[in-house]
Every structure is written in C-alpha cells, then in structure tokens.
C-alpha cells in the first residue's frame, strides 16, 4: 500500500499519522507539503492529519481547505482514492465540501481530551472492514470544535445510507446523533474526530486505530 499524509502549516499529528500507518500496515508513507500541486502516483490512502492548520484562525479548516494541494486531493477523491481526515482533517474535509456538515464548538465550550468508546456503526466500509464483527472501539478525542452539525435532512440521509461509521457511546462534545465519523456517498472519503493515529498499539491504551488503517490496506 502507498499512503500520503498532507502537512499543512499548523498540522501537529502528521508524524503520528505516518507512524500509525507504518506500524499498522507496513505501508510506504510520503509526507506531502500543502503547497504541492502534485501528489505521488499510485496512492491508496491520503490522510489529512489533526492539528491546528493556520492556527484554526477564521474557522477550523477554512484556510487549509483552500491550500494548493487540496485540488489534487479532491481529484483523487473523485477517482476513488481513500481519503481520511482525522480531527482537524475532518474539519478541512467539511470546509472543502468533500463531506457534508460542519464541526462546531464543543457543547461544553471547552477543549476536551479523553478516551472515548465508539460504536462501529457500519462494518462494511473501506475503513472498517478489518473490525470484522467488532462493534466497539476505543480511541481518544482531543478537540475544542468536534461538535458535528448538519441539518436534519442531511443527518437522515447519512443515517439511511449507512454513512455514519462511528458513534460515541457517551457523546463528549454535543455532536448531532452522537456522530464521531462519517463517509461520503461513494464511501471513499472518511472524516472522524477520534484519533486512530493515537490508538495503534496496546501500550498507547488501545490498538483499535490500527484496524482502520488495515481496513484500507485490505481494500487497496
């Protein structure tokens, strides 16, 4: 498998994503600077990592969504390449219009960092196949604006089409319908607030995140 991690100014989970993918799958991971206009050929996975791209100034993800590399990411997504946005990456995908909805300020108005139990709501996606029949996963969240919002019609559609991939068992941030992660209509673009990149080996408290990267590899 070949993977790329996009580095925006202010990304801070870029290395974590690289290490997590390498340790989980043995894949080759290339770091791609946001100013690039070409992506490496033959990618199976593009990750938009967590962090505070452009300091979260203006709106989380708003400026990064306009980075030069994003038109290539969009083109790859249209070609069907798997794209995963984690935390700030999820915010960027929403701002770029590659996923519906938006991430608002947490309901508690504070940044929240804690382990969360997730329900794996759809085991049939490119990002969850390796979970087998496991319906539960543990990862950590760390965000101030992880409160997923979309209008009811969109939420109904997401639900009806099985596009809600992860739900919080105990909603930490007020997300609509306890949504922790969703995919696009083709199922190849994932956005999620919890961090699989911090849960790829047991010593970190959970290795459930590794299953996500292994799922992508299995489908590659």
């Amino acid at each position, binding site marked *: 498998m070949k993977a790329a991690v996009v580095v925006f100014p*202010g990304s801070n*989970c870029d290395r974590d994503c690289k290490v997590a993918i390498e340790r989980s799958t043995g894949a080759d991971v290339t770091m791609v600077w946001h100013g690039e206009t070409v992506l490496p050929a033959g990618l199976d996975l593009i990750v938009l990592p967590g962090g*505070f791209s*452009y300091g979260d100034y203006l709106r989380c993800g708003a400026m990064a969504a306009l980075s030069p590399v994003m038109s290539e990411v969009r083109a790859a997504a249209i070609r069907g390449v798997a794209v995963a946005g984690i935390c700030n990456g999820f915010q960027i995908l929403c701002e770029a219009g590659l996923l519906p909805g938006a991430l608002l300020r947490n309901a508690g108005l*504070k940044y929240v*960092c804690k382990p969360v139990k997730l329900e794996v709501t759809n085991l049939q996606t490119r990002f969850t196949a390796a979970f087998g029949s496991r319906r539960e996963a543990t990862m950590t969240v*760390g965000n101030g604006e992880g409160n997923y919002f979309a209008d009811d019609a969109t939420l109904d559609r997401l639900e009806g089409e099985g596009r809600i991939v992860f739900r919080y068992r105990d909603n930490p941030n007020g997300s609509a319908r306890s949504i922790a992660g969703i995919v696009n209509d083709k199922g190849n673009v994932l956005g999620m607030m919890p961090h699989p990149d911090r849960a790829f080996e047991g*010593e*970190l408290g959970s290795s459930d995140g590794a299953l996500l990267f292994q799922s992508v590899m299995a489908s590659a």
Partner: protein
Amino acid sequence: MIAATPTLAETALAYGLKAEEYDLIVQRLNREPNPLELGVFSVMWSEHCSYKSSRRHLAKFPTSGPRVIQGPGENAGVVDIGDGQAVVFKMESHNHPSFIEPYQGAATGVGGIMRDVFTMGARPIALLNALRFGDPEHPRTRRLVAGVVAGIGGYGNCVGVPTLGGETNFHRGYDGNILVNAMCVGLADADKIFYSAAPAAGLPVVYFGSRTGRDGIHGATMASAEFDADSDEKRPTVQVGDPFAEKLLIEATLELMASGAVAAIQDMGAAGLTSSSVEMAGKGSVGIELDLDLVPQREADMSAYEMMLSESQERMLAILKPGREAEGRRIFDKWGLDAATIGRTTDTGRIVLRHHGEVVCDLPLAPLTEDAPNYDRPWTAPLPQAYIDPSSILPPSDWESVILKLISCPDMASKRWIWEQYDRHVMADTLEDPATGADAGIVRVHGSRKALALTSDCTPRYVSADPYEGGKQAVAEAWRNLTAVGADPIAITDNLNFGNPERSEIMGQIVRAIDGMAEACRALDFPVVSGNVSLYNETNGSAIPPTPTVGAVGLLADYGRRADFASLRDGDTLVLIGETRGALGASLYLRECLGREDGAPPPVDLAVERRNGDFVRDRIRSGGVATVHDLSDGGLIMAAADMALASGVGLTLDVPQEDITSLLLGEDQARYLIGTNDPESLVSKARAAGVPARRIGHAAGGSLSVPQMFSIPLERLRRSHEAWMPTYMEMAAV
C-alpha cells in the same frame, strides 16, 4: 498645572532601578545614559534578567554529573540519556502576567518555555505546569483558574506538545499573587545542541519569527516588582501569544539548525531584543551592532526604545555562519515567517544600536551582563515551626467524614476538570498521564524502548513551616515520584517563587530553601541543570508562601519495567515501605480538618530516602512489583484511596488502634505503598536491604476500610473526589 519633565534619575526609579543602581550606571559609563540606554540597563539589571539577589545562593546547587551536558546558564539544561540522545528541559514562571491577564499570561508562559527548549536544538515532547491559586472563596480565584487553564491548553494543544502532569494548590497566601510555573521537556541529539554565545565577529545577526509590536514593553521589569492596588493598569505589559506562529517557529528553527547554517541562536524572551542581543554577544565576548530600521515591525513609527523593550512573542535571533543567509531565507519563506538580517557581530565588546541613521545606543556589554549588580542581601534565619508530638493529636471521632473531607479538599480533589482541557496524547508516545494513575507522567523516547518520567513538586505548607526542611522535601518528593514509577531520577530544574528579597525574612526563606534543596540534590545525585527565580511575589506587602517548585526528569531504560498505582488486583497484599513515626505537623489533616497550620514539617532523612527509594526502584526493575504509590499529602490513607480509585478495587487496611492517627494521616517521608501477590518475597528482600517493610492490608471488595472503624464504598469516595472541582468551576459567578 504643568508636570516637570522627570530627570533621568527619576526615570530610573520608574523603570524599577534603585537610586544607587542609577549612580552605579553613571559610574560604570563615566557619563549619564540616554533614555534608551537607561531602558536597556533597567531590564538587564532587573531581578528577572540579572538574578541579582539570588545569584550567589544559586551557586550552592550541584550542577554537574556524569550525565550533565549543559547546566544552568543557557536557555535550558541538557542531560545525556544514552544512545547519542539528550533530554533538554527547563521550568519557568509567568506569575505576574498570569495574575493580570490569566489567559495570555499563562499561554505565553507555555510559549516562552517551549522556545527555551527548542532554541537548544530539541524538539519539545512534553509539558507540565505547577499552579498555585488563592483561596477558592476569593472572588478572583475562579476566573483566574479558568483563564490560566484555558491559556495553557490553548497554547500547548495548538502547538501539539502533550501536557503530561503538574500540580495545583489553593491557599489564601496566593490570593494576590498566583503562581504559574510551566515546564517543557525536549529531545535532541547529544552532539547537536545549540548555544547562544556568538562564536566570532563579523557574522550576520538574523531576526526571524513574528514582527515586533508594542506589547509587553517592560514585562521583565513588571515581573520584578510587587503588586499594589493599581496592578490592573499593568495589563498592557502582558504579551499576547500566537501558538500558530510558535508551531511554525519550531519547525523553521529545527529545519534551520539541521541545515547547518546556525552559529548561535537565542529566543527573544523576557526583555526581548535587548537581552537576546546582549546575551549572545556578551557570552561570546564579542560585540554587536544592530540597525533597528531593519527590524520587522508590526506597527508604524516604533521608537528604538519600544523595539528594544518589546516582549512580542514568537521571535528568534540567530547568528548564521558566513554565506548561509540564502539558506535561511529559503526556510523562512517556506514557513511564511518574517525575517531580516538586522546587524553583525563585532569585536568591540559593545552593543551599538542605530536608528534612522543615528547611533542611539552605545554601551559596553560587561556592565550589562557579568558586571551587573550581585547583591548579598541581608537575611534573617527563619524560625522553624515547632515539632508536634503525634500523641497530642486526638484521633478523629468520625473517620469517614475526615477521609471524605480530605479527598475532596481543593488540594486533593481530582483535577480532571483541568487536565481534560490539555491534549495529553498528541505525538502518540504518552504512556502515563494524569488520567492513568501513576506518580509521574511518562513519555516514550520516540522509536525506542526508553522513556522519560516527569514530575513537578513542592509542598508550600512545608516550606512555609521550615524553608530548609521544605526545600529538602520538594527535591526528595520529586525524586520519590520518579522512583515510584521505576525511573532513574537524573536531574532537576528549579523554579524558585518568593516574595520581596529586600525584606530580610523573605531573603532568609530564599537562602534556607536553597540550602535544603542543594543538600537534597547532593545526597540524591540529582543535579540542577536549569531554573528560574521569580521574586517580588507580593501584594501590598503580603508575600506568597515560599514556593520553590522542582521539575524533575527520570529515565526508564525499558518502559516495559515500570510501575503505576492503577494495577492493584483483588487479593493483592499491601506492603508499606518506610518508617512511620507520625509526622502530623504541617500536615494536610491538621490544616483541612483541624484548621491548624502549625507544626514542624516531616523531616527528610536523605540517606533513608535514598536507601528506601533505591530498594523500590530495584524491585520494579527486576519485575518483582508493578503497583507502587508514594506517600505524600494526607499520608497512607490518601495513598490507599488513590490506589483503590485508580485500580477500581477496594482495600482493607490492618492498622493497630493505638497509633491509627499517625499511621493513616502522618506524612512521614521516604515511604511507598506497594501492592503485590508475593508479600513474603518483598518483605524478606526489604529486610535484607535494611528497609522497613510491613504488611498493612489487602485488596478486596468495593470499599476502603479499616475493620471496626470505617468502610467507605469506592463510588462514594470517587464522587467526593471528582465533584469538587467541576462544581466549584461551574458555580455561577456572584
């Protein structure tokens, strides 16, 4: 009425200098300084920059050792951790700014300490913070807590460095002066450490990072003065942080260093461009010339004085090797940073500043640096509080309410409300953090089996009761916390917070606390490699409790062999290591339940501390034990409660009725509580090592209990422990 223009001597007073210090400047220069030069002197001779009251006493600390690569005097200390790697760390206060503007004060404190670490060539990998607030009932406290915590999180989370630990105390002694001490730990290659001394004349001086604005002017001077009723007017002297700029600065600085272009480098912290340029040239025994017109500026028409005294954040000064400026330019452009070559090093031993084509400052460097005042301030030995015979303290009539009171008192209550606002997992190397139940935060050395254990400690009520013993205890407790997770304690950074050193009784606290700390550091082979002194923590003549915070680092050669206190299993036996005599003086029990703050603090026998600690660490290393908690605030009963709550299993203590108060609530030092399924082996090995060890109970059921005395369900204990802080913080402001 027309106010008379102040004379230079009067201006000197307004800048925080004493009349005799102004006279000394005139004498050193053989002329009167101009106003800009006076500004430069005033910040370089401030307590914050010159350490003029503490320098001679700090010299008592042991600062070398087989692992020490760089001791105090640079931006941060550097310690060898083997395999060609080094840990770089320092703790620094941002007390005064945080009191005036808590969010920005705390945020820029975190930013400043991170810059000290990456300036040495290290990537920051962990943060800690030690916070002391006033009485929770004080009208200002809640807002200060909320602002400081949000500021620390807002900065550290954004930059992407995990916050792994710290401590939080509340006491009315901090009502008018809170303490915000931030520590940063970084990782570097031992042969790629960067220093601030300019190596030669004729080299380009390059400014990069954020532009210079009018914020923070005279911050170092403010940090060296007492507060009074008008302190809120000092808000403009507080800097404003931009963590995004800091993140870019870290990446650009590390990339610039890796390019090989850097000859010397220094961040612009307290006293900004003044101290960075003076220190780089002074340490290198060269001179420096700057053209202030070239300084990237945020605002129009800034004066030379404003530029030199600004404490705008996220700025660096580098001296590049000849011909490497283009390389620097490429890196600064990539990261979108402002940069300019603003001067050159010279061989004159002077700092010369030009502005609009004129020389506006021309000073010899020596009086600004090594010849700055170095006072031997008069001090009076503090009178230690008297010993309290434990038999004079009656056992509580209601144990259950005492235990619930202790576990929910502001100092002991869960600080989840605080640490859940800090990113503790970014960088994906966190093994232990406040959520996991261990005596120290632990972070892996990326890509290896090694890990660093980190803690920050001080028990201000002990230091107040007896600065010497309290100073010893702060060091010993840090050493013990690292030991309790199985780490080798390797070095400390100190952050000395005191009142006004011009008062002999305060100076006495400083001198004796340092004496005690130095003795403990020597006895425990625990050198001081960096530090910071914060004096004048007083408001209207009332000083803070003496608070010499110790930030400490330990090394785990294999993190697979470590201990925590969350792994107690049903059926395990509890073994108490160390001797209990019943040290109830200055204890948490006395203060919280009897309303008394008298008594001598627990004495620290450093030989015993070392013997007991070495034994415990050895048992952890050999794989013999993995469930360990040190005994500190609240003694055995609080350690047992922590262990039970973190492990989710009840425990029963078997303690004889006659000395139950001493045994459960005494705060005797050098003690550990160990959970084990092989108590015979542990006790016999302890006996062989000459270490006191006794079976003290066992894990079972779902309550914390002493038969016939009390039995408290864990859920009740947990509710009390967890409820205080969120309830307090969410109470509507009246």
